[in-house]
């Protein structure tokens, strides 16, 4: 069990810098999610922690030990890849036992550990199969099993659910959450899906263009986004941003409520698109030329073209600097 420290970690490929000086402290047993749009450097950062990419400068330490110069195999990390990276020529059992065979683990111990991991993941009946005989979800489980059996200091997940269909993804997300209860190991999880990040993380690290935009618990990044980027990235549909003089005023769609009082509404406009979702309805408004989305109770707005007036609690309104994008 171990904490991870990143100090001024940079990565550049020739002239192009992809990670600009990242500082990060991850506590023991913490589940941290790196989230950001594609190309933001989150996978590169993960691969640097794993030792698969060289560190251009800075320092990474795991469990108090600087690992910059260590090979992946000496860092005691386990990784789950986006395409699972199961060895196609080995059975599930061999896949899970493979790394231990090169670490001098006794045969009986290997069998015990694989059996244990298979039990946790409910893949006991699959151990004799080849990866090509498994479904996507099963492969995903085996990939996780391969990480678990090692009992490493750190788990690294590289967008592990992005190759699954929507339904399975939700199911596996719950699975990972449950697994988390049983195997409490320091984990870094990379995803571009903010819902995954919100549901899984102890802390979320939001990256953009190789820089950390914000680090915080899911509540923190949701309630107090540090930058415009975070505000736009976390939450679906994203936060509405209304320009006002030198600031951007942000309010989440779900914080806009039907205006019923006599005072002036917070904003009003004509509904352009109405998307009923059942539990509530998404209404797009045209407010003085800016698109605003509101999540309203069903049946309040029936069709496009209606005039809508909405109110908002001042506590739920965020202000951002227009030039720097930082929170005010």
């Amino acid at each position, binding site marked *: 069990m171990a904490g991870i420290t990143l100090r001024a970690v940079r990565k550049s490929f020739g002239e192009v810098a992809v990670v600009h000086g990242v500082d990060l402290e991850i506590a023991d047993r913490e589940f941290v999610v790196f989230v950001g749009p594609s190309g933001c450097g989150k996978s590169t950062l993960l691969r640097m922690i794993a030792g*698969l990419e060289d560190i251009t400068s800075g320092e990474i330490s795991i469990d108090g030990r600087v690992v910059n110069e260590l090979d*992946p*195999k000496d860092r005691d*990390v386990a990784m789950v*890849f986006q*395409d699972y990276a199961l*060895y*196609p*020529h080995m059975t599930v059992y061999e896949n899970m036992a493979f*790394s231990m065979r090169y670490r001098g683990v006794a045969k009986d111990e290997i069998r015990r550990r694989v059996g244990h991991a298979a039990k946790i993941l409910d893949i006991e009946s699959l151990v004799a199969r080849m990866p090509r005989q498994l479904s996507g979800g099963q492969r995903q489980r085996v990939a996780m099993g391969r990480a678990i059996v090692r009992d490493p200091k750190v788990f690294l997940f590289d967008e592990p659910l992005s190759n699954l269909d929507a339904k399975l993804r939700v199911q596996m997300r719950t699975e990972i959450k449950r697994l988390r209860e049983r195997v409490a190991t320091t984990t870094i999880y990379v995803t571009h899906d903010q819902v995954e990040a919100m549901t899984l993380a102890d802390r979320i690290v939001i990256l953009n263009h190789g820089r950390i935009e914000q680090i915080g618990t899911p509540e923190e990044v949701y309630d107090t986004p540090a930058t415009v980027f975070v505000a736009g990235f976390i939450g679906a549909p994203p936060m509405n941003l209304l320009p006002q003089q030198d600031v951007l005023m942000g309010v989440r769609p779900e914080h806009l409520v039907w205006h019923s009082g006599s005072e002036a509404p917070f904003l009003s406009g004509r509904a352009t698109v109405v998307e009923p979702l059942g539990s509530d309805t998404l209404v797009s408004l045209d407010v003085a030329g800016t698109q605003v989305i509101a999540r309203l109770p069903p049946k309040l707005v029936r069709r496009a073209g209606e005039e809508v007036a909405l109110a908002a609690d001042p506590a739920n309104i965020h202000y951002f600097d227009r030039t720097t994008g930082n929170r005010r």
Partner: protein
Amino acid sequence: MRRAPSWPRHAIMIAVSVLMLIPFYWVLKTSLTGENIYAYPPRIVPVDPHLYNYVDVWYLIPFPRYLLNSLIVTAMAICGNLLFNTAAGYALTKQFPGRRWIVLLLLSCMLIPFQATIIPAYLITAQLGVLNTHLGIALPLLSTIICIFIFKASFESVPRSLIDAARVDGLGEWRIVVRILLPLSKSAVATNVILTFIWSWNAFMWPLIVTRSPEMQTLPLGLARFLSVLEDTTGALYAFVVLVLVPGLAIFLMAQKEFIRGLTSGATKG
């Protein structure tokens, strides 16, 4: 849609096939013919067929010796090829300064036919002191450029994440090659083994040049020697031919797909 009948095409192809097979048949027939292969007119079916010509070959000439030499040289060539081509192919999948030049160098080497280098190659082999040894015969065959590129292409088609996973799992470079890449490149390995087998099994000119003593001669040399010493006076010569051809044919028929793929991919890439 109106379709042309297929029987004319079948007729042509059957004729072609028969023409292609006649030499095989004729030599097989001769090797089975009991007495006087020169009797005129020759029979289409062998006269009192027997297999004793094959027994004669075994004792008339040092067939076991030739066979052993051929097997040793071929085994050396196959091992060398697998080892060196795998290593070189893997090295070429990596990025390093000068990679482009090495690839270019290899490609241009491919255009130099080996036969055009025999005089200095002989002198070099003499300098190395391996004339008239198995190693000397096998040395130029130990690595093949075409096969290096076949391996390179095959390794490059293995997903990068598998190699990363292996690295996280604690494998060194050589183990990655042996445990991950090679098992996933079975057809490249097969192609390599087959091509090397055929080339070293059939090699004639080079062994002719580097061997001096009959104890070092390989099967093709033995065949040529048989021809020059005993002339074509006996069916045993043709039994010898059949015996020598059988391994090549067997391997080809077993691994036709790999063999053709190897040849064409090697040829088109070169």
